[in-house]
C-alpha cells in the first residue's frame, strides 16, 4: 500500500472557473495499492473536484489541449508527464493558455 500523499493543486488562466473560481486546493490523496501518479491524479480531480463540463479540462486520459501542467514550477514534459509519480508536498499547477491581447 502506498501512503496517502498531500499535494498542493493550483488552477489558473481561467481553469479555476471549472472549480468554482477557487485557485488553490490543498488535497490529501488517500492511501491506495498503487503509488499516486499524474494519470491517477487527473482521474481523482475529475471525480472529486470537477463538478461540471469535464471536457473543458480533460481529453482522453490527459488534460485538454491548451492547458499547461507544471510540477514544482517546471513544465510536466520535463518530469515524465502522465507517468510522473507524485511526492508528498508536490505543487501541481494547471494553467489555461491565454490568447487575449
Amino acid at each position, binding site marked *: 500500500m502506498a501512503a496517502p500523499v498531500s499535494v498542493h493543486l493550483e488552477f*489558473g*488562466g*481561467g481553469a479555476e472557473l471549472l472549480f468554482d473560481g477557487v485557485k488553490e486546493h490543498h488535497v490529501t490523496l488517500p492511501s491506495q495499492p498503487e503509488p499516486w501518479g499524474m494519470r491517477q491524479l487527473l482521474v481523482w480531480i475529475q471525480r472529486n473536484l470537477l*463538478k*461540471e*463540463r469535464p*471536457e*473543458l479540462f480533460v481529453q482522453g486520459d490527459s488534460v*485538454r*489541449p*491548451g*492547458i*499547461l501542467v*507544471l510540477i514544482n*514550477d*517546471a*513544465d510536466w*514534459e*520535463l518530469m515524465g508527464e502522465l507517468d510522473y509519480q507524485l511526492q508528498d508536498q508536490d505543487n501541481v499547477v494547471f*494553467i*489555461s*493558455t*491565454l*490568447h*487575449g*491581447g
Partner: protein
Amino acid sequence: MTTFVFCSYILNYYFYYCGYFVTVIFLLVRFSRLTAMDNEMCSLKRQLEEKEKEIAALRSKLAARVEKASELKIQDKVTTLNPLTAKPSLSNEDIMRYSRQLLLPDLGVQGQLKLSQTSVLVVGCGGLGCPLAQYLAAAGIGRLGLLDYDEVELSNLHRQVLHGEENQGQAKALSAARSVIRLNSGVECIPYHLQLSPENALQLVQQYDIVADCSDNVPTRYLVNDACVLSGKPLVSASALRMEGQLTVYNYHGGPCYRCLYPVPPPPETVTNCSDGGVLGVVPGIMGCLQALEVLKIASGQGTACGQQLLLFDAQNARFRSIRLRPKQPSCVVCGEIPSVTRLVDYEAFCGSAATDKCRKLNLLSKDQRITVQDYKSIRDSTGPHILLDVRPLVEVEICSLPSSLNIPLSSLEEKKSKDIQLLQEKISQVKQQMAGDQQAPVYVVCKLGNDSQKAVQLLEKMSGEEVDGITVKDISGGLMAWAKMIDPSFPRY
C-alpha cells in the same frame, strides 16, 4: 550790521552753488541711468535674438515632425522596405535623449547603436501592442512595423493607451504610429492596416529582425509562430486576460517554438476573449512592458532569459512566477527534425475558429426556436404574460438589463442549482395563472449577443417534463446588443 550783510551774501552764494550742484548731480545720475538702460537694452536684444534663434530651431523641428507624421502612409499591403542604414555614432541629441539608459553598462553606446539598427514587427496594436510600441520608440528602436486590421473603438481606450478619444473609427495602426512619432520622431514607423494572413505573413516577417506577438486570437498566434520559425526570427509573445498575463520568447537560440508547447490548438469553445471575459487595462499594460523589455534586451545584444521559460503574472495576488519549459521538441511539426509544416497553412481551419477576437455567432437552434428583437418588442407592447429569462452572469446584469427580466445565469442552469430552478418554477406558475386555459407559459431567453441564450434554450428543453414543465422556450436572436441597436438606442452597449 556788516556781519549780517556778510552772512546773507555767503548764504546767497551757498544756495546758488547748492542749486548748481544739485542740477549737476541730477544730470549725472540721469546719465548713468541712461547708460545702464542702454546696457540692459543691449542685453535684452541679445537675449531676444537668442530666443528667436531657438524658436526658429524648434519651429523647423516641429515642421519636420509634422512632415514626418503626415508622411506616415498607411500600408494596406506588404511592400519591400529599404534596409535600415547603420549609424556610425550617436549624435549629441541622441546622447542627451538616451543619456539615462546610456549610463547603464548593460546597454551603453554599443547597445544603443544596435537598438537604432533593429526593426521590430508588432502584430496587434491593442492592449499589449500599445505599451510595447511606446517603450520601444522611447528607447530608440530603429524601425517599428505596427500591424492591426481593426479600428479604434471606445471600449478599447481603457487599455490601448496610444489611442485617444479623437481617434475613434481610425485605423489602430495609424493612430498608434502617430502617437509613436509624437513621442520620438527619430523612429521609423510603418503602419499596416491589414489582416496578417498565410499569404502575406512570410514576406512581412522576413523584413524584420524581431517579432512581437500582441495578437488576440489563436489562429494568429499559430500563424505568427510558423512565420517566425520559417524565417528564423525570434518571437516575443505575450497574452493577457482578466487579471492574468503570460510571457515567453519562442524560437530563440535553439529554444522551443509555440507549437513545441501547444502542438494541438485548444477547442474553440474553451477560448475566452477580452470582450467576453473582460480584462483590467493595466494587466496587458504590464505584459506589454515586459515584452518591450525582452525585445530591447534581444535587440541590444543582452539576450533574454525567457527563451525556455514561461513568466506567469497573477495581478490578483501581485505575483510573478517563472516556469522552466520543455526544450525544442524533435517531434515538432514546424521546428522539429522532420518538419511537415514547411510553408504557411490555413490557420483558421487548423484552429476551427476565426482570426479575430470578435465573438462567434452560434447557430444551435432552428428558426422556429428563435424570435427577433422586433418580435419581442411587439410581445412586450402587447403585455401578454411571459417570462423574460436573462442568462447572463450577474456582473453583466449589473451593467444593464431589461425591466422585469428574471436573471438565472447559464452556469446556474447548467448546474441545475435548486434555488434557481425553484425561482423559475414559481415564475412559471405565476404566468400560467395569468393565462387562460391550460396554455404553455412562453419563456424568452436573452443574453448579450444571442449565443448563451441558445445554449439555455437547449438546456431548458432537456429539463422539460422534469425540472421545469409546461413551457415553450425561444431565444431572442442577437440578444440585448441587438435590442440596443434596433429597438432602444438608449440601452447601454458594452
